[in-house]
């Protein structure tokens, strides 16, 4: 099958986008490598503290005028951005595949969800309306005005380089704030393209800024008194640190993080419909997402069902086509880099050492469609006889590894899920409404799937998370994001 054309053809030095201009960084430079081909596709700066300072200054300067810009005028900028994203949909998607390694279907899905957030934020004129009570006392009225706060920092992860900053940024600017986005330095190219389109859409200088880099930029954002809030998606230890730092510096924060999602399989599930959902859940995005299935729990003591179900899972998994995501036949791309592959291999070794049964081994030479280096590729792996105390049963692996457990009944399966400190996206597969409702009611999980393996909320719902999967109160996306990016100003008014 033909390989789709790569949009990034030349290695360029990525610049920061500050105050409506592309500015070269003085920081150290790092290569951006396409994990499928092993080729360098760009060079990204690790920006300095002075550069984050300049971005904050630009955003702070832009804020008063942007705040005074009417909500409708702000939403028109977003409408133009939406149109530009539609026009450049395919290019933006292919950039994601090149920079991250995911399949083209996955990249297009990511682009679409990003655009959906822009679309929802376009409705800001009604989304951020306040409310009013007349005559709360004689001749006195009271009303609430949602007001923007200032400058927000948005820290993006590597696994959804385009979409995740869009869970926050459209709502932040729609409500009248200014933003500084720090893309992952591993895959910053789609954010550069997004900033180019933002520029073309006519956002005033300083409203939308992008500063590339690593810890210096993050620390600069956390410590800067000019930044009023942070949204972050990444690992749980970093999220905890960010949450703590934001508490200390008086910033509001949304910190979305790790997961270990349990997929419960009831014996009455629709097997034919469940298997493809599990493939997407466990192996989609090469397992690098916080909504990936991690543990498959087969419920019930029927060995016949267990064996036939697992045979089907293993058979389907073993046929997954692996390769460069720009090849349309490919169902699973590489991991983002060699270090991540080594980490996943380490987990597979630990699973073997701790006594789990390796049913499908993703180590060794991977059968890749096309001529590509093995460097970042790994095959899908399935372990049986996993227990919650094993490392592979407990830790977030962030790779294409399925750990299979068995539970006698629904109660035990829910207890297993609750034994994990994470609570991001547990799911159940069943044809019983009663069982599904019982699960939905009892499970502690920010997002709950019923016959859905990737519980990714639409843009008009919050992307939830509980326990060690989320730190904060409000979430990204939809009305909660609007609430997060505004402060409630309550006015009590009497004319004498």
């Amino acid at each position, binding site marked *: 099958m033909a390989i789709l054309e790569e949009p990034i053809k030349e290695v360029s030095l990525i610049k920061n986008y500050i105050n409506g201009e592309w500015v070269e960084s003085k920081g150290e430079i790092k290569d951006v490598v396409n994990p499928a081909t092993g080729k360098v596709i760009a060079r990204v700066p690790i920006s300095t503290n002075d550069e984050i300072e300049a971005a904050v200054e630009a955003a702070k300067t832009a804020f008063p005028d942007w705040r005074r810009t009417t909500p409708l005028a702000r939403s028109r900028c977003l409408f133009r951005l939406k149109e530009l994203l539609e026009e450049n949909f395919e290019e933006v998607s292919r950039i994601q595949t090149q920079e991250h390694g995911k399949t083209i279907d996955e990249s297009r*899905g990511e682009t*679409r969800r990003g655009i959906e957030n822009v679309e929802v934020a376009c409705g800001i004129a009604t989304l951020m309306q306040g409310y009013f009570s007349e005559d709360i006392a004689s001749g006195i009225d009271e009303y609430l005005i949602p007001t923007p706060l200032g400058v927000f920092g948005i820290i993006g992860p590597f696994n959804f380089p385009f979409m995740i900053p869009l869970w926050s940024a459209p709502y932040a600017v729609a409500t009248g704030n200014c933003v500084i986005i720090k893309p992952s330095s591993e895959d910053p190219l789609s954010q550069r393209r997004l900033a180019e389109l933002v520029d073309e859409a006519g956002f005033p200088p300083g409203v939308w800024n992008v500063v590339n880099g690593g810890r210096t930029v993050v620390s600069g954002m956390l410590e800067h008194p000019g930044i009023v809030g942070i949204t972050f998606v990444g690992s749980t230890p970093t999220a905890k640190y960010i949450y703590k730092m934001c508490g200390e510096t008086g910033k509001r924060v949304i910190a979305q993080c790790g997961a270990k999602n349990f997929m419960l399989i009831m014996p009455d599930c629709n097997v034919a*419909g469940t298997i493809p959902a599990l493939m997407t859940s466990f192996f989609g995005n090469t397992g690098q997402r916080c909504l990936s299935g991690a543990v498959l729990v087969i419920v019930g003591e029927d060995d016949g069902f267990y064996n036939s179900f697992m045979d089907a899972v293993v058979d389907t998994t073993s046929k997954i086509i692996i390769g460069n995501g720009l090849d349309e*036949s*490919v*169902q699973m791309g590489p991991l983002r880099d060699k270090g991540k592959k080594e980490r996943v291999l380490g987990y597979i070794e630990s699973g073997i050492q701790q006594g789990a049964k390796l049913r499908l081994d993703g180590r060794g030479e991977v059968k890749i469609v096309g001529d590509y280096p093995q460097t970042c590729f790994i095959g899908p792996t399935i372990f049986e006889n996993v227990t919650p105390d094993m490392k592979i049963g407990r830790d977030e692996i962030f790779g294409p590894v399925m750990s299979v457990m068995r539970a006698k009944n629904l109660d035990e399966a829910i207890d297993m899920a609750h034994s994990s400190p994470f609570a991001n996206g547990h799911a159940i597969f069943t044809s019983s409404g009663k069982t599904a409702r019982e699960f939905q009611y009892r499970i502690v999980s920010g997002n709950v799937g019923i016959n*859905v393996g990737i519980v*990714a909320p639409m843009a008009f719902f919050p992307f939830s998370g509980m326990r060690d999967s989320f730190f904060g109160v409000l979430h990204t996306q939809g009305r909660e994001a609007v609430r997060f990016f505004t402060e409630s100003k309550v006015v009590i008014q009497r004319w004498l």
Partner: protein
Amino acid sequence: MELNTASAVVSFAKKLEEDSAKFYEDLSRRYAKDKDVLLSFAKENVKNIVQVERAYYGVITDAIEGCFAFKINPDEYTFKTELAKGASYSDALAKAVEMEEKIIKFYSDAAEQSKSLMADVPRAFVIIAKKRDNRRSMLKSLLGKGA
């Protein structure tokens, strides 16, 4: 090679539409009698491509089984568009009917297999399968008129 991903199936649908449009354009040049009808088929193919791509790009989400929904063997639906030297108009129409049947089967199978995707995708496939079924009836009627 089997088509497994939504992207591959959408590209294949586009190829079927383009190949069959070219076939009708060729026929319209060779058989002026039904030129308008044949050209209208080619034009409709362009609309079909738009309809499929709009459905796919409009609802694609990485959360649904985009990479795992399909098991389409393209060999079952491919067709040859070359006409033998000296082929009559009836031969050409018979070939067109045969081609439409393969395309209808493709869209019907793709609709069935993509039920796990957002509704727009299988719906687009079903609508186009129906349109092509109507086209097949028209072709048969032209054939029956002793073309």
